[in-house]
């Protein structure tokens, strides 16, 4: 039996995501293998027959199957970094191009929520708006981004 000193446990931030429908309700939560405080990865590229699909491929398949019902996707950032990274922007662009649909992309930080939308004319030209009123699911996304880990 492994004994854990409860004083060595503290909540850590790990990015998480959620697909939101056109009624502003969560459709599916996204917790891929290998997620950490700064990254929701898409790295599992070889799929043995006896292993379930990774979170990233499952998320793509969910978008592909439900693209007409989806309003957008939210993911969390550490601290108050409410602006999208270049990794975020290129993912927004390739999904919108592939699915021929524009989406809302939210970024949920510790205290704020931003809404990112394509503004054009270039494929990577997106606007960022800080929201005055948070979506109802923002609190749960923050809660799902905190996990208890053993400190070193």
């Amino acid at each position: 039996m492994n004994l854990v000193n409860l004083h060595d446990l503290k909540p850590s931030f790990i990015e998480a995501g959620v697909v939101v429908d056109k009624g502003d309700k969560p459709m599916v939560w996204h917790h891929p293998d290998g997620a950490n405080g700064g990254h929701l990865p898409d790295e599992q590229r070889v799929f043995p027959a006896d292993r379930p699909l990774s979170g990233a491929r499952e998320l793509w398949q969910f978008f592909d199957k439900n693209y007409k019902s989806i309003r957008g996707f939210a993911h969390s950032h550490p601290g108050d970094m409410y602006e999208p990274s270049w990794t975020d922007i290129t993912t927004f662009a390739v999904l919108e191009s592939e699915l021929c649909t524009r989406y809302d992309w939210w970024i949920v930080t510790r205290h704020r929520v931003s809404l990112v939308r394509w503004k054009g004319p270039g494929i990577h030209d997106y606007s960022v708006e800080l929201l005055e009123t948070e979506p109802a699911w923002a609190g749960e996304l923050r809660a799902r981004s905190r996990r208890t880990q053993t400190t070193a």
Partner: protein
Amino acid sequence: MVEMLARVIQPHQARVMVTYKREHGELPDAVTFDSTDGDVRGWVSEAIRTGGVPGITADPQVRLNDYVIDRFPPVPGVREHNLIDIRPKVEFG
């Protein structure tokens, strides 16, 4: 290297399934299963650009830089050959 598709896919080969702008198709040629991601992106890009993937409308402007390559070994009784699938990345940082 790209090899002509035989009736039976060899163990070192794979079929390549392509989804592009909500259309689906299969690369007419089998490729070696351990081809690099860059090679697969290049072959698929060229095929889409020239209308070489049945079921997918030709797109001279195709860019697959932000697509990832998934590889699936055979599943006995379900699929006897290797499969390569190309799809958009879903990576956030």
